[in-house]
């Protein structure tokens, strides 16, 4: 069958089930039911603390086919997922589903558990490194499910993603299960992605290296959700927690793109009192924040909030008084963690509050301007950030689709060509984010507006922004690179890409 953006999908995918096709970004926003949760009472102050992870794993009765969840705030420094699987891997348990909000190169040991049949399904919002490679080449028995950050929260709340045991890496916890992200050697700030897991998993295990006296302060996940607190030597390597990309680009092409993106924001009328803004941590995206800051300072504009993964750059803008608040689902660097500890206006948000389309209001819906990247973008403005042009998985939506759908002005900033690959192209390898939610693409060789945004186009033209058609961008790129040959992929589906509402926007086939 075809979904509404013309991607060919199987009606049924073995190991996934019946495919509900994507029929539009704003379809399926109706009344929903949240799942019921069974909880084992812990009364009279029963002891939750276990000194040994192996002992706890023996106690909680992990069975074949269970779903174990993890969060990714420790990013490439995470030790908890590998630690848990190392203990479970040798127990003869099979067919586990690993629901990790993101997976990084550090999670390479997962590949061996995939090959051994211990792990037969992975559910995640972003996968990079050896695990992504192994999924792409067919090492995982069932197709992986790729969510958005908001979509994962939706899936957990609805019961689509039914978690048996949530292992929550806890930078600090007290003995009765109150967790915070601001103390201990692996302090990572916000714990936004772990909140739904804690609220909806049948069993919740806090794994910590820093046991603090009861009651813990600055609680991110509260005792009423937590069954056990396990104390281990170390939950994460602080050097891997900090993202490596939080520097403004020095590339003049990137700076040109960023400065043009700010011109677009101004021309579209958003550079005014109360502006809300989000940008990724890539070099060009951060440069947009840099130029926006100059404009806001020179015009005396005070924004309402900046959101998302928070970087030191946004902290700097907040501390200079350019935003009244920071809405933070995940701290990207040490500056953000410091600010999260110190600044009252620097607030945590859960993944559900951030981007779940099936709750009573997500932060993305309050967002004016979103700056985002793209691995590929097609003539209908559909964006791929899931696979590379070689067909291998190398990322995923994260908050891409959520913010594109929610924000009033979503701007893709990208070089037109990267390593010979035309970024603007006839057809993207995988659709992550539907073109109907993307408003503008800014490249060094031209700016194109989605033809569905007629009013925006007029505004930009009236303000003197020179526009081209997206076909022109594609032609300019192909003139330099040549037309890319079609990939020859196997028929087997190795990953199902779910849009934030749970419908299938595309599938990834085996390389």
């Amino acid at each position: 069958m075809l979904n509404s953006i013309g991607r060919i999908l199987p009606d049924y995918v073995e190991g996934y089930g019946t495919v509900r096709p994507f029929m539009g970004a704003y379809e399926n926003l109706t009344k929903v039911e949240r799942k019921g949760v069974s909880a084992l009472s812990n009364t009279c102050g029963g002891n939750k603390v276990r000194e040994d992870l192996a002992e706890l794993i023996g106690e909680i009765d992990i069975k074949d086919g269970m779903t174990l969840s993890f969060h990714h705030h420790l990013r490439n420094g995470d030790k908890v997922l590998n630690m848990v699987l190392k203990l479970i891997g040798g127990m003869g348990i099979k067919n586990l589903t690993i629901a990790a909000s993101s997976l990084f190169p550090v999670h390479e040991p997962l590949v061996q558990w995939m090959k051994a049949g211990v792990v037969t399904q992975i559910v995640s919002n972003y996968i990079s490194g050896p695990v992504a490679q192994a999924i792409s080449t067919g090492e995982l028995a069932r197709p992986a499910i790729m969510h958005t950050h908001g979509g994962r929260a939706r899936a957990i709340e609805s019961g689509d993603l039914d978690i048996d045991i949530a292992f929550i890496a806890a930078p600090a916890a007290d003995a009765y299960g109150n967790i915070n992200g601001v103390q201990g050697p692996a302090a990572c700030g916000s714990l936004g992605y772990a909140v739904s897991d804690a609220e909806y998993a049948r069993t919740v295990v806090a794994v910590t290296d820093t046991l603090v006296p009861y009651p813990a302060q600055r609680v991110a996940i509260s005792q009423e959700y937590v069954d056990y607190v396990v104390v281990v030597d170390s939950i994460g390597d602080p050097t891997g927690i900090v993202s490596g990309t939080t520097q403004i680009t020095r590339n003049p092409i990137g700076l040109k793109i960023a400065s043009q993106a700010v011109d677009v924001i101004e021309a579209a009328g958003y550079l005014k009192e109360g502006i809300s803004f989000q940008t990724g941590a890539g070099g060009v995206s951060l440069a947009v924040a840099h130029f926006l800051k100059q404009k806001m300072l020179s015009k005396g504009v005070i924004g309402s909030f900046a959101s998302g993964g928070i970087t030191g750059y946004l902290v700097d803008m907040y501390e200079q008084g350019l935003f009244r608040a920071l809405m933070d689902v995940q701290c990207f660097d040490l500056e953000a963690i410091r600010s999260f500890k110190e600044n009252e206006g620097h607030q945590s948000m859960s993944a559900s509050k951030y981007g779940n389309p099936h709750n009573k209001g997500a932060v993305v819906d309050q967002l004016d301007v979103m700056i985002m990247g793209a691995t590929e973008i097609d003539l209908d403005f559909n964006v791929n950030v899931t696979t590379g042009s070689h067909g291998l998985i190398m990322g995923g939506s994260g908050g891409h689709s959520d913010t594109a759908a929610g924000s009033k002005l979503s701007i893709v900033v990208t070089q037109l060509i990267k390593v010979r690959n035309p970024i603007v192209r006839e057809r993207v390898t995988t659709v992550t984010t539907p073109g109907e939610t993307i408003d503008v693409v800014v490249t060094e060789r031209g700016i194109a507006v989605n033809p569905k945004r007629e009013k925006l186009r007029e505004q930009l033209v009236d303000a003197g922004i020179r526009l081209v058609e997206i076909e022109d961008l594609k032609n300019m790129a192909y003139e330099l690179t040549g037309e890319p040959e079609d990939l020859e992929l196997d028929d087997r589906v190795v990953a199902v890409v779910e849009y934030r509402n749970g419908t299938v926007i595309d599938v990834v086939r085996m390389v």
Partner: protein
Amino acid sequence: MIIQNPSCAGAMESNDILIMLHPSEDGVQIQLESKVKKQFGRRIESVIKTTLEQAGVTSTVVIARDKGALDYTIKARVITAVNRSLGGGSYE
């Protein structure tokens, strides 16, 4: 013309290509490694081949390590490698 002296040009940097020419008497053979081989491998090989033909080279083994070079870069690197070979050859 047969390539008699080994030579090279270019670099293994992003958006560049390293072209190495080796002596051979069995016609032009190309061994290409490229991050974009799936999408552009045939085109890159054809640019190398045509450039060699235009330079009058009939026999050589080309080892090409591509990091996303565009056609004009590939041509320039091939021509320089041929000229270096004619000038006595060098891997510098």
